[in-house]
């Protein structure tokens, strides 16, 4: 560990390439914390938005007209407005009208933290796209399959869970992968509401140490790696789910 730090310090002194995250313990701690927060954000929002997508796709097949309309309104609202402004709306706007509670410092603080609102905002944003994706997967199932399930005595919920979802998942995995990749990239927006994720801490580090190009390269490398990991995992899942003769 000390050897690596010493090598980077030497690199800074000789070439001017300044990677403080390698040799300065304060910067390194900050950076690793930021990476952790980005990973947390990614995992929570991926899981949450998939759930929202599943529930929304289910509700879009509901019997009540108003349920379907409300889901449509939700989708159109969140798809046609910028995610950054949505985040500001939640963090600054909605926060100010929700109730507050007294915290340990004696001031009234909002119930949901910046990280919480970032998660909520991103889950709703990506969830809206996921509802459409799952819906297109459901539509791709031949009606004869659904009718066969009906003939076998499945209820609506049983059909959805045991017949529709497995088939729809296989159809919409490519589009879902695309959306989840976008979601990981969109977590950088949490920077604007001071969530200490990777871009935020990198900005602080390069403001203090004036090493913008180095931090940029590190950032791009890490995000490429993260996205690559997700795509590899989804492709592996796709391969595992493949059934000969189903789809293209």
């Amino acid at each position, binding site marked *: 560990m000390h050897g690596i730090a010493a090598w980077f310090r030497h690199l800074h002194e000789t070439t001017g390439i300044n990677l403080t995250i390698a040799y300065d313990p304060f910067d390194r701690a900050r950076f690793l914390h930021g990476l952790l927060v980005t990973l947390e954000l990614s995992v929570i929002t991926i899981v949450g938005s998939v759930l929202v997508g599943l529930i929304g796709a289910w509700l*879009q*097949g*509901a*019997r009540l*007209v108003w349920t*379907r*309309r409300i889901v*449509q*309104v939700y989708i*159109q*609202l969140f*798809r*046609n*407005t*910028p*995610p*950054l*402004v*949505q985040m*500001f*709306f939640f963090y*600054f*706007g*909605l926060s*100010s*009208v929700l109730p507050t509670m007294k915290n340990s410092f004696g001031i009234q603080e909002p119930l949901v933290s910046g990280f919480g609102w970032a998660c909520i905002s991103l889950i709703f944003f990506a969830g809206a796209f996921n509802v459409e994706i799952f*819906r297109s997967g459901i*539509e791709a*199932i*031949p*009606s004869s399959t*659904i*009718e066969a399930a*009906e003939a076998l*005595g499945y209820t*609506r919920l049983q*059909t959805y869970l045991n017949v529709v979802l497995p088939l729809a998942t296989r159809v919409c995995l490519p589009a879902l992968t695309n959306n989840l*990749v976008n979601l*990981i*990239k*969109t*977590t*950088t*927006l949490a*920077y*604007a509401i001071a969530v200490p994720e990777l*871009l935020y801490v990198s*900005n602080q580090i390069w403001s203090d140490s004036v090493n*913008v*190009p180095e931090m*940029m390269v590190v*950032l*791009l490398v890490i*995000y*490429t790696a993260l*996205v*690559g990991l997700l795509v590899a995992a989804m492709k592996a899942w796709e391969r595992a789910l493949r059934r000969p003769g189903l789809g293209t």
Partner: protein
Amino acid sequence: MTARVLPVMPPLPKVLRRDAPLPRLRLSLWHGVALAGFVVLTAMAADAATEPAPRAGVLAVLVRWSPLLLRGFGFNILISFMAMAIGTVLGAFLGLGLVSLRRPARALAWVLTEFFRNAPWLVLLFFMIYMLPFRIQIGPLSIALPDWVKAVIGLGLPVMANVAEVMRGAVQSIHPGQWEAAESLGFSRNQQLWQIILPQCIKRMIPPWMNLYAILVMGTTLASIVGVNDVVTLAGQVQAAEGGRTDLLVPLYGYVLLLFFIYCYPIARLTQRLERRYAVRI
């Protein structure tokens, strides 16, 4: 063998069947009206909750600052047009590289496409803002690069990568029979591409291209984080100029959301209509 009478199950509700149409909202205006109503309602509620004088009513504040906010929004639209233009032109070249027969061209195009598709847009923006020089000297000519132009370039790069992907997808979706028929008629590879395949691709590329534009319009708000004075920064400055009133927040950001919605929703509907019209019927 005795016959068992099986219970009769009623048929599934219509909406789960394939033949039932998906719920489509007829009046596209209603959404905008609903959102506008929401903004006005919150403004009025904030108004009612505020003490009377000397603070101005929220609606009055919105009206007073509307010219500035609309100018900011117009700036966002300008950025989106320019970034889309740059991205489309560059993406077309990159797309040609992706379908090229030469391996090095394909590899280079693949590297660039993957890189710009996987990089977060905000990081690319920061990169362009910090790394691009203010002025470019080409011989006697010196071109200025103000901040928003750097943002345009920064936004044009992921657009370029996505346009290249769309083009590649469109070319690959053309039935191989078309290539074979063209080859059997004696067209060279280049002629096949430009005279037979690409004209068929254009129709297929339009809906995803428009979808990309809508995403880009919403991406222009990222420029506010790197210091460009777009509608989001202006909204913050308006709130600060009005004394930092917290009751202004929901109406102000709701107003900005409304502006984007009014612009993007018609584009989304048009895209849907074009998609249906251009759907390939095999």
